[in-house]
């Protein structure tokens, strides 16, 4: 029994059971009592059906689409870092509790909010409910968010390609296969089935090439030089991918990446559940302490931003209200699509938790996931396959990062174009797609170059979680306006906004304090940057100090934007309460029956 409890299986299983219970009872209860879905009420998909943006889509199709849209590197990297910082128990606790009480509520409610508002996305809804100022804050916020996301993801892509020599060939050949597939399907009008078979054979060849051609070797230019080398390579490929039309590269690539991605997720989950049979057990402590290993981060508030996606993620509310809400066939589909996809994404986070918990090596970044997943899978299917699995999961990480990142760069371009569209003069050039793409990648490379990934991840997680807090409070604003109980989003939203502002402020403070005393590196990782500079006879301090100040200003901007947005949202809630004549405590006005009263 003791052996069984020292494997990840029971904890993953408990997580799955709790998800089921939460979905079956709590989520359905909220669904029925708060939003009261009516299958007879027209959704935007049926009311405004145009066959392009608005059209009804089967719930299973939409669930698959929503899951694909929300799942990326977030649910993998967050648990990998958090388990190494604070131990597996607090990480597991936050993943499970986060998704049960906050995560699904945000995804589902954001979708329902959009469905009940004619399929509008977050920009117009914010404008209508809260005002013009809030919408401008949202725009500025997204500008920083996409930048941080790009820096974090490009670093992870580079670290993975460097850590697992040969994995680059897999993604490169898959990209080429995507180009060929695109040409065959869209130009030569091949049957998709035969074109897919051909492209998948090419992808398989990519795996073989990656396995045998392990060149250049890991750290061939030293750790710093190699990661920067791969960062630049990926930046160039991403720039091309983000500029060329989607059907030429990204759409067929995403389609091809789906096959190994779904196989990887399924394999890790099954291997984790079968870990008592394979004998793969925990090698990390359950609880390290309230202060993190390596970085010294305090558990509160930083655990709650380190694990973002998988527990709760603001990105999801954008997706839920962007495309999905316009295609919901019936109101009763909102819960399985929005809530169901979030619970499924959290299962990916559980798989990352299981993977990192069974290896003892200190591997910051996503590479720990690769080693852990390979350990779990080879434990079941044979130790001889370990090296093959390392490459398989390494490629999986590259696929997950690359597919999202190309889209993020496109979104950043849209944000930038929107910001400069009403301005006059040469600043309008920032709206140009070549300039905007180059700018975001250069800015991201500048962040990566300082080798403070662990801090940048906190900023990224913080912005992501703050966005989630905004989404929850926006939903609470709407529910107050229509005189519905809002406590289930108001309480988590308030918790998230306080926690994430504290996390960002704390990280910004660390940058500021380091700028005054940069003789020692900020993190163990940054020591590599120091070594690199001193190796070339350059004194690192002025450069690091300048970066620290910039990073502090970014954090300060985020805090100011967050407080402003929080002010707008709470003010709107109070205004709507006053208008509606609600006198009960905030969030407590309810027309909701108690469980079992109906």
């Amino acid at each position: 029994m003791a052996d069984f409890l020292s494997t990840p299986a029971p904890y993953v299983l408990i997580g799955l059971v709790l998800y089921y219970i939460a979905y079956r009872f709590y989520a359905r209860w909220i669904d029925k009592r708060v939003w009261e879905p009516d299958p007879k009420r027209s959704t935007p998909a049926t009311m405004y059906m145009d066959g392009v943006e608005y059209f009804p889509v089967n719930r299973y199709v939409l669930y698959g689409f929503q899951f694909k849209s929300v799942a990326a590197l977030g649910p993998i990297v967050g648990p990998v870092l958090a388990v190494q910082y604070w131990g597996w128990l607090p990480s597991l606790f936050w993943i499970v509790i986060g998704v049960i009480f906050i995560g699904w509520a945000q995804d589902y409610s954001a979708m329902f909010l959009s469905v009940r508002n004619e399929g509008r996305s977050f920009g117009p809804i914010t404008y209508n409910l809260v005002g013009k100022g809030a919408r401008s804050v949202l725009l500025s916020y997204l500008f920083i968010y996409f930048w941080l996301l790009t820096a974090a993801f490009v670093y992870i892509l580079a670290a993975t390609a460097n850590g697992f020599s040969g994995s680059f060939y897999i993604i490169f050949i898959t990209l080429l296969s995507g180009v060929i597939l695109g040409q065959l399907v869209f130009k030569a009008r091949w049957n998709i089935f035969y074109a897919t078979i051909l492209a998948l054979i090419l992808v398989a060849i990519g795996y073989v090439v990656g396995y045998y051609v392990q060149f250049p070797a890991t750290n061939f230019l030293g750790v710093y030089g190699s990661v920067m080398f791969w960062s630049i390579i990926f930046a160039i490929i991403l720039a091309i991918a983000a500029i060329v039309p989607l059907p030429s590269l990204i759409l067929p690539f995403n389609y091809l990446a789906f096959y190994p991605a779904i196989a990887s997720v399924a394999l890790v989950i099954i291997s984790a559940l079968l870990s008592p049979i394979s004998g793969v057990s925990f090698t990390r402590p359950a609880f390290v302490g309230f202060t993190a290993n390596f970085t010294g981060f305090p558990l509160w508030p930083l655990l709650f931003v380190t694990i973002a996606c998988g527990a709760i993620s603001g990105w999801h509310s954008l997706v839920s209200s962007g495309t999905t809400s316009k295609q919901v066939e019936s109101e009763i589909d909102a819960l399985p699509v929005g809530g169901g996809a979030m619970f499924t994404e959290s299962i990916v986070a559980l798989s990352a938790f299981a993977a990192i918990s069974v290896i003892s090596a200190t591997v910051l970044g996503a590479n720990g996931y690769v080693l852990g997943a390979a350990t779990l899978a080879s434990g079941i299917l044979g130790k001889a396959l370990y090296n093959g699995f390392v490459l398989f999961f390494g490629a999986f990480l590259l696929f997950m990062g690359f597919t999202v990142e190309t889209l993020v760069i496109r979104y950043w371009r849209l944000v930038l174009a929107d910001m400069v569209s009403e301005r006059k003069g040469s600043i309008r050039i920032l709206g140009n797609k070549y300039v905007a793409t180059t700018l975001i990648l250069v800015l991201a490379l500048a962040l990566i170059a300082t080798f403070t990934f662990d801090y940048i991840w906190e900023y990224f997680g913080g912005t992501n979680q703050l966005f989630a807090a905004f989404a929850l409070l926006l939903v609470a604003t709407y529910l107050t306006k229509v005189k519905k109980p809002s406590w289930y989003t108001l309480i988590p939203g308030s918790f998230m906004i306080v926690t994430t502002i504290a996390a960002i402020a704390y990280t910004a403070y660390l940058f500021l304090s380091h700028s005054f005393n940069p003789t020692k590196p900020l993190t163990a990782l940054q020591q590599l940057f120091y070594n690199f500079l001193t190796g070339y006879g350059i004194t690192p301090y002025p450069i690091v100090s300048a970066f620290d100040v910039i990073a502090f200003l970014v954090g300060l901007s985020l805090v100011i934007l967050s407080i402003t947005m929080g002010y707008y949202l709470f003010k709107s809630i109070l205004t709507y309460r006053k208008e509606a004549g609600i006198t009960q405590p905030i969030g407590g006005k309810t027309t909701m029956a108690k469980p079992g009263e109906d």
Partner: protein
Amino acid sequence: MIFKKKEGENKKKSNPLKEFMYGFAMHGNVTYMLRTRMYMEHLFMLMTLGDMLGFPILPPYYSLRLLPYMVPNIKSWKMRMLRERDFTDLISG
């Protein structure tokens, strides 16, 4: 003789796994293709109806010849053109 079909007879049997797979792998691509076609249709509509809107792109003779093909799309085109647009509409993961 009129054969009455039973309710739901026309509906294909739902295969959740297949539909999930389609949604995961293909739905985003299909949506993107539809959107691309929408932008092209906008251009076509503008060319055809341009002279009525004050943009004389095609000679009226050709516009009138094409008009019957345009009529079925006018309602949805008008809806799309008049709908407020925001960059957050395009975010789909």
